[in-house]
């Protein structure tokens, strides 16, 4: 071990530093396909002061820092860079406080998302953002990616629940941004700069989250359709009827089949498309909304509407949907997931374009997504070892991205840019706003130490 690494070892203590190949290989990727890189070392700090000391160590030694939560990211955000230090925050995993008077929860960044909602539930409270990965993603990763989830349509995304952050800055200082006040206009909203910053501006070491009262009732249903377009139109009709359900998820047949293969809960695999619809809130409102939505989807061509018998069954259906992405990996060796989002009124058009593109390039694309908020996940089922097919995949991807931008959409709705969508970001941003990204990065991390080269490159290429 070099003297520099020994100094780092002293910071994190025994068992807190990994440098052997057998330890590093398991940190050489995240949830993104095709991206692998070994780091120099992995540090597992167990308190904020250690995080700050690690960042200072990195600066002194000219080593770049890649922060990592659970490594479930889907754009390569926590994939290591050559020679970098991975700062894995999995051991900063304590819920520090639930404040039932102010309806807040304070936690370390390594706490698992689901544990936050479970803890809130014990007090009759609710933490709504529920990414598909909530069983294992960390809250720090959620904030750094500004993750969405199945309930985004009604409840918004992670950003809407972050009241304050503690952040270790690139120079090793510790900053506290925001507070427990519902209203706060003191200075720039700096905390917002770090939400969705993908580990490029600072390391989040504590979060203060807003909670809501837990909804008293919930109703879940599945509606089947004989075409994807009919399903997309039913969604538009629900929104047009001024109903905002908490969940409006879309699943195509391929995805449905894979999820059923895994869960075996009797999903209607004969349908070309299925909508998972959930409404929650006051029992009377829930009953009313559910009845109206059932009527609307039937009018728009739903063949069958299956209403969950009880909450447990409803939860099972929602859990099945959360497995969609991983379950798709059953079909082909490599699963490449996109995250394009368009204004809701353009959804049917986008869905149609995706399936035409698949046909044109002779590729297999399964589609599911948070249709209620226009966020689609066209997923390529392919094989990274088949170079010829991969070329076609990247062509098709590029076309889907261009179409998205032409429809006024965004290249990523919730998974972030990381490495995987860097090239597309350039197409979406005009020169002034792209320049602004660089300007912020230079101001906060002048040494380009934190996750450099993620989202965008600092120097014009």
């Amino acid at each position: 071990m070099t003297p520099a690494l020994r100094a780092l070892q002293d910071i994190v203590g025994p068992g807190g530093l990994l440098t052997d190949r057998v330890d590093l290989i398991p940190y050489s990727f995240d949830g993104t396909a095709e991206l692998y890189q070994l780091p120099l070392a992995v540090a597992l700090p167990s308190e904020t002061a250690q995080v700050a000391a690690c960042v200072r160590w990195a600066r002194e030694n000219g080593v770049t820092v890649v922060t990592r939560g659970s490594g479930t990211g889907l754009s390569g955000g926590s994939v290591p860079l050559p020679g970098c230090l991975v700062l894995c925050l999995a051991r900063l995993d304590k819920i520090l406080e639930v404040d039932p008077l102010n309806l807040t929860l304070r936690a370390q960044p390594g706490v698992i998302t689901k544990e936050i909602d479970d803890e809130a539930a014990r007090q009759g409270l609710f933490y709504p953002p529920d990414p598909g990965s909530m069983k294992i993603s960390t809250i720090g990763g959620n904030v750094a990616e500004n993750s969405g989830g199945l309930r985004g349509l009604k409840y918004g995304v992670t950003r809407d629940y972050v009241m304050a952050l503690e952040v270790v800055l690139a120079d090793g200082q510790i900053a506290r941004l925001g507070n427990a006040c519902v209203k706060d206009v003191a200075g720039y909203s700096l905390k917002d700069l770090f939400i969705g910053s993908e580990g490029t501006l600072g390391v989040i070491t504590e979060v203060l989250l807003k909670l809501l009262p837990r909804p008293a009732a919930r109703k879940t249903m599945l509606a089947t359709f004989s075409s994807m377009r009919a399903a997309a139109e039913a969604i538009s009709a629900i929104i047009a009827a001024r109903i905002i359900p908490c969940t409006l998820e879309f699943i195509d047949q391929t995805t449905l089949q894979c999820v059923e293969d895994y869960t075996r809960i009797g999903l209607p695999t004969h349908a070309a498309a299925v909508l998972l619809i959930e409404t929650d809130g006051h029992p009377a409102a829930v009953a009313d909304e559910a009845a109206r939505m059932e009527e609307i989807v039937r009018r728009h061509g739903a063949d069958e509407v299956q209403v969950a018998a009880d909450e447990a069954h409803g939860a099972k259906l929602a859990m099945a949907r959360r497995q969609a992405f991983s379950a798709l990996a059953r079909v082909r060796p490599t699963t490449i997931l996109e995250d394009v989002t368009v204004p809701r009124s353009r959804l049917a058009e986008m869905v149609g374009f995706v399936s035409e593109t698949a046909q044109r390039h002779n590729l297999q694309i399964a589609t599911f997504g948070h249709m209620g908020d226009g966020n689609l996940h066209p997923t390529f089922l392919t094989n990274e070892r088949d170079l010829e097919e991969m070329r076609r995949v990247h062509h098709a991807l590029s076309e889907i991205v261009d179409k998205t931008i032409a429809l006024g959409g965004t290249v990523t709705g919730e998974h972030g840019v990381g490495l995987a969508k860097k090239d597309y970001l350039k197409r979406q941003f005009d020169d002034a706003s792209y320049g602004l990204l660089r300007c912020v990065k230079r101001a906060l991390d002048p040494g380009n130490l934190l996750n450099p080269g993620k989202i965008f490159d600092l120097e014009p290429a």
Partner: protein
Amino acid sequence: MAKASLRDLDYKVLQQCMHCGMCLPTCPTYISSKLERHSPRGRIALMRAVADGRFEAGQDLAREMNYCLGCLACTTACPAGVDYGTMFETARAETEANHSSGGPMRRFYRWLVLEQIFLFPRRLRLVGWLLRTYQRTGLADWVRRLKLPYLLGRKIGDLEPQAPGMESPFSDGCIAEVEVPPAGIPVRGRVGLLSGCIQSLAFGSVNRATADVLLANGWEVVTPRLQSCCGSLHAHNGAPELARRAAKALMERFELDGLDAIITNAGGCGSHLKHYAGLFAEGDLATKARAWDAKVKDIHEFLVGTGFRKPRNLAAESESVRLTYHESCHLSHGQGIRNPPREILRALPGFQLVELPESDLCCGSAGIYNILQPEESQRLLERKTGRIAGTAAELVATANPGCHLQLARGLQQRDLPVQVVQPVVLLAEAYRREVSP
């Protein structure tokens, strides 16, 4: 199907993992360490690196694969259908074959246990007999000098007074080779009974109970004498050749054609017994193994699948005893059998089944893991007994001899007055009480 080396394995098996991490929160070794190398995803990455030639199948890999419990919780959790079991067995076979696994002492004991004892029913019985004598007469010094308890695993060596232990006769001594249902019960068919190795020595009474419930439900029971180990220990510990030998020997003991099913009552054995076909290359043995696999049924699965008779509720049994259920990993994760044992327990008059939190988290027994990795095993055991204590149950049921012994040991360590039982034993007792309450 497991191969001799990771490079020989179909690459698709390794590539199937898309590193989503959904398995991490269910993996016992990841839960306690929060280190990726101790997670399914991390281990798969290491194995794939070996197949790619980026990492050596040396001591580091061996250490990691030996730290894995083989509990298969990851396969239950994995939405992508990753076949972790095959990779795991292949990696263990490769590191055993190239001697990366452990020092000479470990290799000696492994050799003794796997090759010299478990393959030979008579020797195994001799060891069991010695242990029984040991327990009765306290020939402790003599046995300790021979390190016999160590050989068979602490689980048998440390038998506590509350474990059924070697007190009861071995299986062959209490079950006749062919038994027919008592008069008045119409015969529905004929099944073979696997007596198992540990089960037949330490839990002869469980085998007796298994035969009893089958008879009570109208099944003729054939229990061939001197059955050998099914080979699951060998397959999980990197000895595929020995596993093949064990499988062949065991299949020869049964006349397949005349049997409707072959019944196993040990979760750990069952998940291996159902996959003999994977052990053999195409040929007569493979054909025979496929027929065998189709007939092997776990006792709970069989009883519930064929519709078992619910014991009558006698008026005297109005008070109810709190009972909880710990799932054997290879029953729940390995065979996907979760509900049938619970259905049987719920059918018992006089008992109330309460759910055990984390009922499907490994208890740390895991074959011979508790001998080879005592620290992690102990951590898991303490977590488990803590959960059991939390249910305030008087009884904990489990359907695997390894789990049974491990739980009994853990409960005794904590001085908890909870009895360990196997579901079929309770069912057999309930039937018996109908006749003579």
